[in-house]
């Protein structure tokens, strides 16, 4: 029998206004326990202004074998980058 409870992924916001970033995971039986464990494990030195916990089983993730299929289409579209374009000599602030 599994005695380890569910796995939860932890996202920490380091400063107000910033994006929540993945920090790691904890085991917990419910939301509240997950938040408390996340606080104890990942924010002991004032690292956080906010915390999100998400049950790992609820996360849909891409897999390594899908990598090419998912991300290849972006590789040959260099025209999405501003450096692709010729800016006339002397033009400023663009």
């Amino acid at each position, binding site marked *: 029998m599994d005695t380890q409870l569910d796995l939860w992924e932890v996202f920490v*916001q380091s400063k*107000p*206004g*910033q*994006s929540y970033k993945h920090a790691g995971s904890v085991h917990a039986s419910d939301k509240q326990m997950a938040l408390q464990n996340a606080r104890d494990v990942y924010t002991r030195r004032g690292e956080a*202004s*906010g915390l999100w916990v998400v049950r790992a089983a609820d996360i849909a993730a891409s897999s390594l074998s899908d990598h090419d299929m998912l991300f290849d289409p972006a590789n040959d*579209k260099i*025209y*999405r*980058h*501003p450096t*692709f*374009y*010729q*800016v*006339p*000599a*002397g*033009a*400023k*602030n*663009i």
Partner: protein
Amino acid sequence: MPTTTTDIFTEKIERDLAIEPRDPMPEEYRRHLMRQISQHAHSEVIGMQPEGNWITRAPSLRAKMILLAKIQDEGGHGLYLYSAAETLGISREEMIEQLQTGKARYSSVFNYPALTWADIGAIGWLVDGAAIVNQVMLQRTSYGPYARAMVRICKEESFHQRQGYEIMAKMAAGTPEQHEMAQDALNRWWAPALMMFGPSDAESLHSKAAFQWKIKRESNDALRQKFIDKTVQQTEVIGLKVPDPNLRFNAETGHYETSPLNWDEFHRVINGDGPCNRQRLEHHRKFHEEGRWVREACQC
């Protein structure tokens, strides 16, 4: 130690701390943001139409791929913004309904037609250029999800402006006819682009609250001036003329002076009577209806 909900909110705003969806916030702040963010989202989506009009007529495969990528980005910007608005408790359906019934607006600039290929250049350079100036400020807006969406959007916008400027530069340096098309597009888009910043906010009550809540950090006039100061030089470099006989550099202030804008036209266009308003909404409704079966299938 702040005790009431308003105290907590006010203190966060004073200390320049972002407000997150679950933080306490005054109802008027929430409503102000719902309106602003949803209208920003509508502008991204409706803004795809004048450019989409040229996809099948792009002059080269290169130009077509770039234009497609640019328009796809705008659709993405709409999605970032609709999601940010949803964190405030409004649903996507409500927002779409407000757009389609005319209760919510979108930027008046998208009610002008893109008549020639040079317009695609002018839109990228001027319309996206003006949007960038506004959006750079909004990266520091007080509502966290909105500010974060702006950071993402600003990163993507810079290609939009450059591709437009590249088109303008090429056409300005092309045949006399091409040069004339570029100048004509600039003539038609200049004033609508300047009006994107909105009327002077000196008297607007909305603006006053927006400043207090740090939703907004610079005035419409200041942002417009920034845009003018940047753009005049870019115009000269490619050999075009700013279509304003009163344009003058004031050496004392270090800024360009321009003619007053026609705000009657602005109000007329934003209230529904511009060259393409009806067409824009009809197009949106048509495709929204045609996609109904997909939404319904999703619920089975």
